[in-house]
C-alpha cells in the first residue's frame, strides 16, 4: 500500500526500507567531533536538541494539525524534573531521563484529555496558559526548583565511570546525536503507522475522521502525550548539559522559536523540521550580538549600534518571505506541497 513518503516509508511490497538518507545524515553528523572544535560541537548540540523538540511539536502541529503555543512547558517540566531527580533524589541521569519523559507524557495526558475537545484557537490559548503556569511554578516553588535564582550544579551523566563535562562536549554531542537518532526513528515509525494515519485524518477533516471510526479525543491525547514526552526528554538533556536551569530559558519566545522551526521547515515533514531547526539554531548563533559585532567590526559598525534582539527581527522577516515564496516550508511533506502548488496554479 502506498504510504506517505517519509524517508522510511514502507515500500509497496510492505517490506521495511532502510532510511538511507537519515543514516547518511547521522553518519555525517557523527564526524563533526573530528574537527576538535568545541564551539562547533556546542552549536551542533543545540541544533540536535532543538531538532528533537521541533520533531516533538511537529506531532501536534504538523501531524494532528493542532496549534500548540506552550510546547516549551513540557521542555521545562522535563528539565526541572530531571534536575530534581538527579540532585535531590540522587538518581542517575540514565534513570532521570526516561522518568522525565514519562512525567512529560503524564502531564500531556492530564492537560490534553480535558482540553483537546476545545476548538483550535481555544486549545492554543490553553497551551499558552499552561506554559506560563510552568514558569510561575518554577519561579515560586523555591523548595523544589530553587526559585527565581535558578537551579545550580545539576549532575552530569556518568557512563562506565566517565563523567560528561561541558567544556569538552564530545560526549554530550554523541549523547545528543543518540537521542536525536532515537527521536527520528520513532517519528518515522509513527508517521507510517496506524496512529500516524489517524492523526493525518484528524488533521485533514475531523468529522470525516470520526465518521471513519477514529476516536478523536483518544488519538489527539495520545499525540499530545507523545509530543510532551519528547519535549520533556529534551529538557532532561538540557538540564544536565547546561548544568544550571533558569526559568528564563522556558519563556513563550522559546515556544515561538520551536514553532518557527516547524513552520519554516515544513509542517508535518520530519526532514523539513530538522532542517528548520538546524538553520534557525545556526542563525541564532550568527546573530548573537558578540558574533555580529565581531563580524561587523571590520566594516566600521560600532557594536553599540547593533540591536540586542536583532534575531527576532530577522526571524520575522524570514517568516514573511517564506510565507510568500515557500508557504509549505523549505522541505514540505509531499502532499502538502502538492496542495500549495495547486493553489498557486489556480490563482489568478
Amino acid at each position, binding site marked *: 500500500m*502506498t504510504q506517505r513518503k517519509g524517508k522510511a516509508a514502507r515500500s509497496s511490497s510492505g517490506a521495511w526500507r532502510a532510511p538511507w538518507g537519515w543514516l547518511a545524515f547521522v553518519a555525517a553528523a557523527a564526524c563533526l567531533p573530528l574537527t576538535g572544535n568545541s564551539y562547533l560541537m556546542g552549536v551542533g548540540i543545540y541544533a540536535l536538541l532543538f531538532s528533537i523538540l521541533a520533531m516533538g511539536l511537529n506531532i501536534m502541529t504538523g501531524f494532528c494539525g493542532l496549534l500548540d503555543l506552550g510546547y516549551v512547558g513540557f521542555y521545562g517540566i522535563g528539565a526541572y524534573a530531571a534536575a530534581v531527580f538527579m540532585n535531590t533524589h540522587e538518581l542517575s541521569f540514565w534513570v532521570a531521563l526516561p522518568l522525565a519523559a514519562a512525567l512529560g507524557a503524564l502531564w500531556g495526558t492530564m492537560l490534553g484529555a480535558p482540553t483537546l475537545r476545545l476548538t483550535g484557537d481555544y486549545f492554543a490559548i490553553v497551551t499558552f496558559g499552561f506554559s506560563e503556569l510552568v514558569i510561575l511554578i518554577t519561579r515560586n516553588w523555591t523548595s523544589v526548583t530553587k526559585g527565581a535564582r535558578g537551579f545550580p550544579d545539576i549532575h552530569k551523566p556518568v557512563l562506565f565511570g566517565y563523567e560528561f563535562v561541558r567544556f569538552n562536549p564530545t560526549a554530550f554531542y554523541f549523547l545528543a546525536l543518540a537521542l536525536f537518532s532515537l527521536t527520528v526513528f520513532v517519528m518515522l515509525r509513527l508517521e507510517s503507522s*496506524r496512529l500516524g494515519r489517524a492523526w493525518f485524518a484528524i488533521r485533514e477533516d475531523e468529522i470525516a*475522521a470520526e465518521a471513519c471510526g477514529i*476516536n478523536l479525543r483518544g488519538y489527539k491525547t495520545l499525540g499530545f502525550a507523545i509530543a510532551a514526552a519528547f519535549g520533556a526528554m529534551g529538557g532532561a538533556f538540557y538540564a544536565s548539559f547546561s548544568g544550571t536551569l533558569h526559568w528564563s530559558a522556558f519563556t513563550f519566545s522559546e515556544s515561538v522559536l520551536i514553532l518557527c522551526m516547524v513552520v519554516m521547515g515544513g509542517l508535518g515533514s520530519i526532514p523539513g523540521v530538522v532542517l528548520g531547526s538546524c538553520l534557525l539554531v545556526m542563525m541564532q548563533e550568527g546573530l548573537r550580538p558578540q558574533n555580529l559585532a565581531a563580524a561587523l567590526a571590520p566594516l566600521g559598525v560600532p557594536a553599540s549600534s547593533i540591536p540586542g534582539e536583532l534575531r527576532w527581527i530577522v526571524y520575522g522577516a524570514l517568516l514573511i518571505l517564506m510565507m510568500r515564496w515557500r508557504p509549505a516550508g523549505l522541505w514540505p511533506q509531499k502532499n502538502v506541497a502538492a496542495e500549495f502548488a495547486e493553489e498557486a496554479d489556480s490563482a489568478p
Partner: protein
Amino acid sequence: MSVLRVESLKASYGHIEVLHGVTLEVRADELTCLIGANGAGKSTLLKAVTGLLRHVSGEMSWDGETLVGRPAPSIVSRGIVHVPEGRRIFPRMTVEENLRLGAFLRRDRAGIAQDLERAFALFPRLRERFGQVASTLSGGEQQMVAIARGLMARPRLLLLDEPSLGLAPLLVQEIFRKLQEVHREGVGILLVEQNAFAALSIANRGYVMETGKLALGGPASELLHDPRVQAAYLGGG
C-alpha cells in the same frame, strides 16, 4: 435481521433543541429515504445515530442493543456507517488512502483488499484515479470517494446525507443506481435527500421530517402519491 429503532429522540445544539422527539425504524434489508425541508433536522438525526452528536436523549437501538451514549467508533464497529453531508473527503490524501481510512477499525487485511476491489468494481472511475490526490477530483468523483469510503467499513446499514448535493442530474441518477446496487448486495441504506422524487422512486420506505419532528412515514410508493408530499416536496399538487 437488524433494525435501527429510534424512539422519542431529542437532540440539541447548546440550548437549542432541534429534534423534538423523533420515532422511526430503519430495517437493514430495506432502502429507506428521509426527506424534509432545509433545517428540518435530517442531518442532526444521522449525527445523533452515529455518535457525532452527544447531546441526545430518548432511545436508539440496533440489534436490540442501545446506541445512546456510545462514541462514534463503537457505532461504526457495530456496522452503522455515516457518509456525512458535503462529502468531507480527506483532501490531501489519495483516493486509495481515503478508502483505506474507511476501513480504519478493521484488522482483516484480506477482507479490506477484497472490499477495495468491490469499491473499484462499483466505481470504476475511482480505480483509474486511485493514486490521485482527492482534492483534485471532480465533485462527482469526490462523492464516489465518500460513498466508497463508507462502504470500506463494511457497513450493515449505510447512512447517506445528501449524496446528490451539487451533482448534475445524470450523475445523480448514476449515484442512485449505485446505491441500489449496494442495497441489492445486502447493505441497508438510509438515504437523506432533497431530491424527493428520485429518492422515493428507489426507496422501499420513506419518512418525511418537518422542523424536528416526523410528519409522515410509510411505503415509498404510497408517499410518492400522497397529496401532502406531492404538494410540499414534489412540486405538484
